[in-house]
């Protein structure tokens, strides 16, 4: 049985690019933006993650009240 903790049998190696190893300052390529604003708390989207019995799926939350 495939273990959840192992790659799928048909897996390929993880791409070499992407998330960089955590390097100390001054080492390796310059990665990521020097200053990243956290916008998460400013956005107040409608919609949420309510799994409803009637729809059987994540539902768009018309009822998802912005506090």
């Amino acid at each position, binding site marked *: 049985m495939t273990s*959840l903790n192992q790659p799928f049998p048909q897996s390929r190696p993880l791409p070499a690019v*992407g998330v960089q190893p955590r390097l100390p300052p001054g080492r390796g390529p310059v990665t990521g933006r020097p200053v990243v604003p*956290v916008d998460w*708390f400013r956005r107040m989207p*409608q919609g949420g*993650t309510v799994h409803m019995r009637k729809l059987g799926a994540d539902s768009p939350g018309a009822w998802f009240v912005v506090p």
Partner: protein
Amino acid sequence: MSSPVASPHALHAAIAPAVVLVDERRTLYRLAADVLAPGTGLSDNLLDHPIVRYEIGRALAGHGGLEPALLHRAAGLRVRDAGVALAADPQAADLLEAPLRIIAPPGTSPRPLTEADGARFEAVVTIVTEGVRLFRQLAPEMAVDLLAHVSMLAVLRAETSGGVVSASSRYVPGIVLIDEPSTPMEVAEALVHEGAHEKFFDLAITREFLDVYAEDVEYFENSWSHARWPLEQTFAAWHAYSCLAQFSTVCQGQHLGPISLLPKARERADEIGRWLLEHEHDLRADARWLLHAMSGDGGAPDRSGVDTSVTSEVREGDRFRVVPGIRFRRAASGRVVVARAGQPPEVFWLGVEAGWLVDRLGHDGLVQSFDAVAAKAAADWQVDPSTAEARLRIALGPLIANLIVERAS
């Protein structure tokens, strides 16, 4: 779309192990509390509390201030250890008013089961305990990865749940609400589903996933209910379905109820993932990387796309300091998060060199010359002086533009 290249937990860990992510989340909330209510001094345990995070989140969104008394009242919520902290307090309906209101379908008032329900609650404790154990048994590493982000579980009385099977909210991160379960497998699936959302919430506030423009872009319409979702919800749904699809591979032989999403999860994850790949330009770097890596298309983009031509012009003798009023904290990972008081406060994560520089300049308005800082950087980083200066200039430009660091006369 081909099959995933690796399990979600391995890809999550490539961004940051759960323990690192949780520490960085705590660091952000602790900094926010420093700015909103100086001297509050919240413990890690309190910082993990969903209601504490709700109150801090409200203040960061500009919806009022932070009342320390509210936080300590929330902390009094009694829980039962069921493998996760299960809300048990007879006052839970009052203390958890916010998440119960937020996830309630129209015309309903979900109420939590508590110790006041006696044997009925004890039966639920047993099922939840078994459900957590089952999750850990079937998918031990996924359980560690996702449950690290679930601080509390509340079970809704079946006659009040209004059709909610399971729910979580970006506004009250850390709490999962589920309908009164019949089987441990229902609990296990709900923890995968909602735990994936909780993981995403923590990724979204500590890494580069979505920006302020996420609300303005095209909506996704799914084929199975024709619901239309904004980008954030689309990404969250794709992430949850991807985790559920992976979990389904170890659930052979388990009895699944008629509303289980496990049999549909792979197909739905692929459908949403195809749409996201067509709209990946609307995602930030870490979200794009996770999308490609989990989709297994071999096209995970390089995140090192920093425009190094935007550097700060530094003249001989220039001196710098952290702008007065700026507060910052360093996470155990070394990453630095910065906050500026205001209505609402502003929060920023810094890159490694920018974080080093702000940490070096310090809180107290200490003025330091660029030459002295660069010399220290070259020594600390064990690089030649010209490399240190070049990297500091790359960091200084955005730090100055965002009013975190300023020139001192």
